[in-house]
């Protein structure tokens, strides 16, 4: 009888331990960023006929694009970036076009949707304010082409936008990435989505504010204390 009581006690302790482990995991079920481990990235375009592998250092990639709600906090704290204050050299006339006014979106714009109609200058200023930065083209392409994102369900379906990169028009600026002959200089001529992205980026100017262009941030990885590690599928 005593033994049975002991067993029940152990069972209860085991159950509590199990549920604690579960709740600990549950509290970590909404990660905001992931560490992309460094590695070699094969750019879309060859470098003087060579594949031109580039090494990308480890970095943290935000899982979500910056939302209207987050951007509102930024413009509240930085009046020079409000819709009516932004200088045209930093953001064209379509800056925050869908927002009703400086500090209101209006009913057609959701808090949790990615902010669009923001320029490269604005995206950079937001990133600095948030203690982060914009990804480079190499970082973005490396992370997404390798499908390093652990759980795609984490990424909202509304996030179907092009994204700013820090060096958006620095890649391959001498060869045309837009013309028909561009295929001959590509490492993977069948990667049409990448062609679309490169061609899109190549035609941007830094003060453009477009309906289908938003951004996400990255940050440098100099700390090693991340909690959950997920293997590539």
């Amino acid at each position: 009888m005593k033994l049975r009581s002991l067993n029940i006690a152990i069972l209860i302790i085991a159950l509590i331990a199990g549920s604690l482990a579960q709740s600990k995991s549950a509290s970590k079920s909404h990660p905001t960023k992931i560490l992309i481990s460094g590695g070699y990235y094969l750019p879309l375009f060859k470098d003087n006929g060579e594949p031109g592998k580039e090494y990308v250092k480890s970095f943290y990639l935000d899982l979500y694009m910056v939302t209207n709600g987050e951007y509102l906090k930024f413009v509240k704290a930085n009046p020079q970036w409000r819709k009516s204050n932004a200088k045209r050299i930093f953001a064209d006339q379509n800056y925050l076009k869908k927002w009703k006014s400086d500090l209101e979106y209006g009913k057609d714009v959701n808090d949790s949707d990615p902010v669009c109609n923001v320029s490269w200058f604005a995206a950079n200023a937001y990133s600095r304010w948030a203690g982060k930065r914009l990804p480079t083209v190499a970082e973005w392409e490396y992370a997404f082409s390798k499908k390093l994102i652990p759980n795609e369900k984490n990424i909202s379906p509304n996030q179907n936008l092009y994204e700013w990169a820090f060096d958006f028009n620095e890649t391959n600026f001498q060869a045309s990435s837009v013309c028909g002959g561009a295929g001959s200089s590509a490492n993977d001529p069948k990667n049409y989505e990448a062609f679309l992205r490169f061609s899109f980026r190549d035609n941007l100017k830094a003060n453009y504010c477009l309906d289908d262009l938003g951004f996400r941030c990255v940050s440098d990885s100099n700390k090693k204390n991340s909690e959950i590690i997920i293997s590539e599928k």
Partner: protein
Amino acid sequence: MKNYLIGFVPVTLLTIAVITYVDKGNGNFGDEKNKTQFVQVENASENNTQKKQDACCKVEMAGEHSDNSIYQLKSMWKDQDGNTIKLKKFGGKKVVLAMIYTSCPTACPVIVNDMQKLESSIPEKELSSYHFVLVSIDPQRDSPAQLKKFAGEKKLDLQNWTLLAGTQMDIAELAQMIGFRYKKNASGNFTHSSLITILDKDGIIENQSEGLNQSAEKLIAILNK
């Protein structure tokens, strides 16, 4: 004894189950060779935006320059003597500006030479209404001291010339503003545009010339639009 065994078996099974569960939650690295790429997920816990605010936004509300002036940039630069300056310091003069790096083996010396041709085409008494600015795109190698050395080698008259060193971000912003493109190669050198930009007294782009080794006539033409 029988009672003991009956109790012990489920506890053991449960304990194994819990251990397995926790192990899964932390990820399984049993097969490292096939998983050279892996990602770490960090918990949602960062809200450090407040303290970072002062580091942001060098773009201030400035009423004194027009909306399309590059003097809207409030970035701080170091000149060849190590002084900290803003670009708007050059306001009031017509500015001839190029982005270069001093260890450039090819294009940049030619760009500087083209700018010197321009300088020598301006009558001496008018020279004080112009300023020549070289902005380095190589923050790693072009310190103010290196810029000063370069100015000496090229015999630049520092009355009329200023050489600037800045951060990667400030260089990128200025480059985007004037449409200058550059990319660092694996060798540490850059592929870049060859661009001379003329700014009016208010910092608005008045004219640009793309290309190398231009004739004096063509260069003077960009000055006088």
